Structure formats: C-alpha cells, structure tokens
C-alpha cells in the first residue's frame, strides 16, 4: 500500500512583484503514497495553494519554480514534472493528475454548456467518440448524484454552487486520474452541501483508490478526510504526520495553536486560545524560525537558525527546536 506516487523534492517557488520576490514555497519535501488522502493545511499566505498548483505547473504567470523536482511515478516510469514541455504537460494534466479548484462557481466557461466542456476535456486527450464520452459522462454525473440529462445540457449559470462543485468532481474523474488535488473543495458551500461533498469524496476514495491531496485552511476538512496531514507555515512544512498525530499529538507550537483556535460543536468544551501576531512578510524574511515571533516557546536559537523537519515518531516529522517541550496531547 505504501508505494509512493508523487515525490516533491526540495521545492522552491517564487513570485516576482513590484516589491520584490515573494518566497511562497521554501524547500518543501513531501511524498504522496498510492491510495492515501493527504491534507495540506495552512492559513492564507502559507503557500499551500502555490504548492498545489506547482504540482501541475499551473502557477500564475508571475510565479516560477526556482529549484527542486516534482517526481511523478506512474505507468512503471518516473517523470520529473518540473522538466515537462508544454506538450507533455498538456497530455499529463487531468489524465494523471486532476485538480478541483477553490471556486467551482468560476471553474466553468460561462458560454459553453456542461456537455461541451466535458467533451472538450475528453477530446483534448484523444477520446473523440461522442457516444462513448456521453455514456461515461452520464454515469459519472449519476455517480455524483446529479440528474445527468438535465445537467449535461445546462449552462453553468443554471446550476447551483453545490451542483457545479459536483459536476467539477465528476469531470475530474473523467479520465481516471491517479491523483486528485482539491483546493478548498467545500469552502464556499453551505454546511449541508459540504457534508454531501465530503460523503461523496469518501465514496470516491473507497471506490476508486486514487490518491487525493486536500488543500484547506479548514482543519475540519483534514479531520474528516485525511490519512496524513502536512501543516504549512510561511512557505514551509512545519509538521507532517498521521491525522491522529497531528490532531492528538501535535509537536509544533503552530499546529498546537491552530487546533486550539478552533472550537467544536458536538464535543465538549476545551481550552481555546489564539496565536498572537500575524504571519511574516514573505518578501523580507527574517532569519531563524519563521514562527518564532509568534511563539511562546521560542529561545535565542529559534531566532538564529531555521529548524529542519526531524522525525519525532513513526512517520511523524516536525520542524521545531523545542518539540520535546510541546505538550503530549490534551
């Protein structure tokens, strides 16, 4: 089961803007295993979305991969995605790795019917048999609990937000990709629709065994769906481990702070507090641990050197000099 399918090695991504270079992703090492759900958790500006889009090389035009490799292992071969030509990328995207974006509302071309957009996708990958595509599209739409006949002939604006999100998920499965990246897949939706999407994603995982990467600021999505969780702060992964390790045995003060900042409804009360201060400026980064200015555990070392990820338990990594002092669970 634990065969890796994606290996991100020492990845650096930057954006250039008028003020300077935004160091959005700084030296990320991350493996994705076959059939697992990995959650990338972080707040705005943590680099999680940049990391996600870098995987399929869809960075905005001001962004670029400065260093590192993104190795995809599929069909018995290894490919470095960061070296792909435009043509290779085109064939690779959606077929091997599909991505569901944050704003399903704007993910569809407003002037084309759903069917045209589905067929466009199939044709781009060499499948031009209309009947075949139609049958597959209908069965997928049915799978995501939509009325296929109605949806397929609709324009995007005729569908509700939840329906569009389901259409996009159905479309992402069209070419049976090995990896599915979902960027904030539930954020804009209301709670009952969120639940429905979560259940759908669970079913997909059970039925199809593909690997999924969830990008979210919302810890609960990770708690719902992830096998492993990577917590990002200021462009780097500060803690990585199984979902139980992260939620019940966090070793990084930031992870601990995040978890303690979110109240629950159905569980009892627990002690909550918020992290003081705000995230650092990614253009003028100070030396040392980027979290140090907001950290109550910091000492003089933290302000000089930046900690690396070290293994603190089985498959549990943390980038903190003082991880031994961070409480053992609640």
């Amino acid at each position, binding site marked *: 089961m634990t065969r890796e399918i994606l290996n991100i090695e020492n990845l650096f991504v930057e954006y250039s803007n008028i003020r300077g270079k935004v160091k959005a992703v700084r030296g990320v090492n991350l493996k994705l295993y076959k059939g697992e759900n990995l959650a990338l958790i972080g*707040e*705005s500006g943590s680099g999680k979305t940049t990391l996600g889009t870098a995987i399929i090389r869809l960075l905005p035009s001001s962004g670029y991969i400065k260093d590192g490799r993104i190795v995809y292992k599929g069909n018995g071969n290894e490919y470095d995605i960061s070296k792909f030509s435009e043509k290779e990328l085109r064939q690779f995207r959606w077929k091997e790795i599909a991505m569901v974006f944050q704003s399903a509302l704007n993910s569809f071309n407003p002037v084309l019917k759903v069917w045209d957009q589905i067929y466009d996708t199939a044709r781009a990958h060499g499948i031009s048999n209309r009947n075949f595509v139609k049958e597959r599209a209908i069965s997928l739409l049915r799978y995501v*609990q939509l009325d296929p006949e109605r949806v397929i002939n609709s324009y995007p604006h005729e569908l*509700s937000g*939840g329906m569009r999100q389901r259409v996009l998920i159905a479309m992402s499965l069209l070419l049976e990709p090995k990896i599915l990246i979902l960027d904030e897949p*539930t954020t804009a939706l*209301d*709670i*009952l*629709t*969120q*639940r*429905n999407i*979560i*259940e759908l994603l669970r079913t997909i995982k059970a039925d199809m065994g593909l690997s999924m990467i969830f990008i979210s*600021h*919302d*810890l*609960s*999505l*990770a*708690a*719902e769906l992830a096998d492993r969780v990577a917590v990002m702060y200021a462009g780097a992964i500060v803690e990585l481990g199984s*979902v*139980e390790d992260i*939620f019940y045995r966090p070793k990084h003060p930031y992870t601990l*702070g*995040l*978890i303690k*900042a*979110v*109240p*629950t*409804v*159905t*569980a009892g*009360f627990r002690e*909550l*507090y*918020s*992290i*003081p201060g*705000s*995230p650092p400026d990614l253009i003028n980064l100070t030396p040392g641990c980027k979290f140090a200015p907001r950290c109550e555990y910091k000492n003089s070392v933290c302000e000089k050197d930046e900690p690396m990820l070290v293994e603190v338990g089985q498959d549990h990594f943390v980038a903190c000099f003082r991880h031994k002092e961070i409480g053992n669970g609640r």
Partner: protein
Amino acid sequence: MEDRAIIQLDHVSKSFTVRSGIFGGRKNMQVIGDLSLSIGRGEVLCLVGESGCGKTTTGKLIVGLIKPTSGRILFEGKDIWSMNNEEFKDYRKAVQIIHQDPYSSLNPVHRIYNILSAPLFRHGLVRNRSEAEEKVLDLLDRVDLTPPGDFIYKYPHQLSGGQRQRVAIARSLTLNPKFIVADEAVSMLDVSIRLSIIELLRRLKEEMNVTFLFITHDLAMAKYFGWEGRIAVMYLGRIVEIGPTPRVIENPLHPYTKALLMAIPEADPQVTRNKTPMKLRSLDIPSLLNLPPGCSFNPRCPFWIEGTCDKEVPDMYEPENDHYVSCFLFRGK
C-alpha cells in the same frame, strides 16, 4: 424578559421586489417572514444560519439601515420608525454594527484617526483635535492596537485583516453603544486570529455591558461566544428554533438544527468521523423567489408529515421552558 428587552422585533417581514427589465415581471422576494424576537439587556443572542437565510438582513433591520415591509422594530420599547428626531438620534448612537469584511468596512481614503474621530466630532464628544487624538488613542488601546501611536495615522491598507477588524470594532465603540450587531465579524479572518477577536468582543461586553447580536454561519463560534446566551436558528427567512445555547446544541429539536449539527465537519478526527449525517429528502435549497408552501423545510425534511407540513406554516411551540421550535412534531407538546 419583555420589560428588560432592549430590542424587540414584532412580526417583522421584509421583501424586496426583483425586476427584470422595464416590462419584466416584478417578483416579490420575501427575505424575512413574520419574525418576532426579543433581545434582553446584556444578553448575547447568536443568530445562526446558512448564507442567504436572511440573517444579515435581520441585522440591517435592527440597526435601522433598512425599513421592514411590515411589522415593528422596537428599541427600548419604542418603534424606531415612528420615533421623533431626538429619540432616533439616541437610537442611532446606541445601536452599532460590525461588518464581516474588514477590507470594505473602512474607507480607504481616510486615516485611522479620521475614521475614528468623525463620529466623535459629529456628536460633540470632543471639541478639538487634541481631545480627539486622546480619545482615538484610548479607543485603539482598548481594542489592543498597541502602541496606539503606531496606528493612529495609518491608512487602512497598511494594516492586516485582523488589525482592520479591530479598528472597525473601535469605531463601533466611539459612541458608547448599548447594543452591537456583529455580522460574521470573524469569518473572513484567518483561523489563528479569529479567537483573539472573539475574546476582544467578550471582554468589551463585560467591560461596557453591551448587548450583542452575534450573527454567524458557524455554530461552533456561536456556541463558544454565546454559551451563556441564546441561539436562534434561521432557515429561509424564518427562525425555526430558539433557546438557551446549551440546550439548542445538546438537545436540538428542529429537524433542520439536527441536520446541521449532524453535518458540521469538526476539527477532531474521531468526533467528526463518527457522525451519522441525516438523510435529507432533497439536496437543493428552495429559492427565496419560489418558497414552498407550508413549512419551508418540508421539501427536505425526513420527518415531513404529508398534508400538514406542506400546507400550513407551523407556529412557535415551547416544548421546554424557554426553548421554542417551529415544527409540527412539537405541536401540543
């Protein structure tokens, strides 16, 4: 409770007319339907619902930004839309709002000093610049923007989201309000900052004895902020359940509240994975332009009674003391 009430809504409805073109059909969109509510002095009432359910409209009705189509809104027992000028001025000063988006709630062309001093000058609370400066510094200090001297002459765009929201809170405090509507005041902020804003509001409530209407879509935040107060659950313009927070959370009565509580994803893997969501009859939310007859939740409700729920609108029943629900399952209980 009636005599202690600071704000009361008395059968309030609000509709907007939606037009399409000059000859297009006019449609009545009822956003709030027959809402009655009473908020006691010093209380925290959390108004919870999904986006588009009418909770923001309720907030705007209470602060007098829009007029109800029918019904009355009473401030300290007086109908705000039939007040004389003097009374209305007092009401305006006493009731304030904190908006959701700290990026659009502060005018980008003004410095923080101007934003906070304008109401002070307007209502004669300060007479000159040095008094105003002193008062503004004090306000900034109160919302933990310290040292206040660093912030007073900045423009909004030079502050972070959390800092802006603190300025917005400071502005709502300029006139020593009695009642504050906090409309999704933390939902646009980063997770790690939210709680500190909530704590700030809680502290201000204690220090200044302000009554709060806390509008949110996040039941967990409502529970956290309003544990000692009450929760009102709103669905398609109507309150479906209202009661003391612990009882609504621990013993929800309305099927919609139950569905919400069972559906909310939680930041705890064991808790959230052991939830069994309620099977709804339909995934689609009816449009406000085309509300179903009877109880508006009936097309989705698994406990729906044919011939009753799709015909009549349920009243508010009180199956437990102080815990009201608008559902036929509780008729006569």
